[in-house]
């Protein structure tokens, strides 16, 4: 049996998450294999449907790397996405998906190490949870 490598979609705000991801690289931190970085201008750009669709299309976990609260370049982008996250969590609960598969993490641009840690922790957590149960068997 092949090892289960959880697939993670990581939405990265251009003001925090994305520079942090680059910094993780610059610091030569190894990231998990199956991470897709999605660069967005602000966490406020992330539509609820992206979170839901990522799960529907088989992502095992979805992470949002956003700026710290009160520190959004666009004032309320990270707060709006927090609301959308809670909507998605409610829907996941009804569907029967574990809440842990979707999470928001607040970062500053220089927290590349933290970003790498979070991703590794998430991988470990998702390994315990097992594959996304709604993923369609191919």
């Amino acid at each position, binding site marked *: 049996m092949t090892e289960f490598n959880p*697939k993670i*979609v990581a939405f990265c705000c251009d003001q925090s998450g*994305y*520079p942090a*991801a*680059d*910094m*993780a*690289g*610059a610091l*030569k*931190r*190894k*990231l998990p*294999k199956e991470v*897709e*970085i*999605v*660069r*967005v*201008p*602000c966490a*406020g*750009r*992330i*539509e*609820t*449907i*992206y979170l839901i*669709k*990522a799960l529907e*299309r*088989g*992502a095992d976990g979805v992470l949002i790397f956003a700026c710290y609260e009160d520190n959004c*370049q*666009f*004032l*309320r*982008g990270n707060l*709006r*996405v927090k609301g*959308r996250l809670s909507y998605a969590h409610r829907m996941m609960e009804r569907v029967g998906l574990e809440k842990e598969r979707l999470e928001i993490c607040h970062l500053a641009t220089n927290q590349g190490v933290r970003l*790498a840690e979070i991703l590794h922790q998430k991988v470990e957590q998702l390994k315990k949870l097992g594959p996304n149960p709604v993923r369609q068997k191919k």
Partner: protein
Amino acid sequence: MPRIGILIDTLQGSVPASFQEKLSAYVKEFPEVIVCFKEDDLNSSDAISRINRYVESEGFDRVVILGGSPKDYEISFQKLKLSLPLNPYLFSVANIREQALWISSDEEMALERAKIIISKAIHTVNSTKPIPTQSLTLNPEVLILGGGLIGISIALDLAHAGIRVFIIEKEDRLGGKAQKVFKWLEEKIDEVEKNPKITVLTQARLKRVVGHLGRFEATIECPDRKEITLAASAMVVSTGYASYRERKGIYAHKRVVAIEEMEKIMAEASGPSLLKEGKKIEMVTYLLDEVNEDIKIDSISAIRQSLILQDLLGCQVAVLCKDIKVSSNGMERLYRRAREKGVLFFKYDDPPRLSIVDGQIEVDLKDTSPIQKKERWPVSILSDLVVIGESFGPIPEAEELSKVLKIHLGPRGYFMEDNPQLLRVRSNRKGIFIAGACRFPQEASEALIEARAVSQEIITLLSKGTYPYDLAVAEVDPKKCALCYTCPRLCPHSAITIEKYGDRNVYTTPMTNKEMKWGAAKVDPASCYGCGICVAECPAKAITLQHLTSEQIYAQMNLGE
């Protein structure tokens, strides 16, 4: 079919040659890719001119750079934008260094990741439409709200730069709070009034503002209730602050005055001494930090006043405070001079007690200052005059103004800057600047620095006469708009308004007031920062970001259909 040119930035050797080979082999699998070059340092200027030549000789219309962080190329992008015949949105960067090479545990994984990143970048340029750049004419016209120290200072700066200025002042004359403090302000006011570039409207009120950066239209209500409309490219809010103090009990005594009133008393003084009701004032006690502990304005005013009192008006001054706050320029020196001249400073923890003794006011306190001096606690000062600090707050009109201007107020009710570290004098709306004590109570010399910053920003903005912007911003499809008002409420930059299309004939009744028919939400492209909040919230899915569509985001997730 798009014609894509690939540029491999070898980043001065940090991408190994063997890896480069594998990548160039991979990109050739894409039918759209017509050419693949290598460059040692894409940020160098000769590299840019070489790329320019490649574009012309090879005839590609889209570019994907395989290199480092896209953030690193942003500046060169700007240059490329100017120098290349290509649309800047037909570029994409595949960050194969940070996001593949450096984060992978082995080369195989790095290659896998790089391939995914490259395919996403190719998808991005393939799916992007060229986004045109437009420009907005900026007339050199600026509206300043508030003709106090800051408003006057900005008006003069701008007028000297050839900009037409309108000052809207609610009082009947210019100067605001500062007119009592600074004698030289009179000259400035005079200068303003004589300057043909500056128009002053006193006893005026801003009633309504429509439009955005470059074409604000402000309706002003003048004293005779007449309304006039002014056009401005940019606006400045310099409305200052309000100060107040509830005066109960002994604080209502005529020998207790606020610092601001003291300014007036001193300004009216003539001769070598200070008189109150015909009697000479000998002992003046400043009682600070009762209501405003964290603001240095009071400390500084008290020291400034006490030097004059002590030196020129023959008074003995005592300053009672919790802390001496002299962190602005030159204030340490003034403080030392005050001490040298004999001004007494006391520190208290428990509030001093005031009582009336024979028409004078006795101030009793426990002095807790560690500095050796004759007077140890308890101290009792029989004063002819007690000068107290006041509370500071936003002006009463702040909330209404924030609604009219559609700019944000901070939690304490002052106007809020867009970014406290970087963009201190910009409001959340493009083209509206805020300066001085309307942001928070501050000391005049510091506020004047802000005034200068605003002047510079505006002069830079207006000097070109145009404001270029591209359409990589949110755009509303008016046919889909449900007029739910979600986006104007949520736009952090107040860049969205509901457009009134008077001429859109939807109903059969002839409109008596065309202004009163609403069509759809409209984003002002020059005011939009492209954050995407409105796109994500629109319940009708009527808003798109042209350079980052949902389809492109799904492609970046790389999860298939």
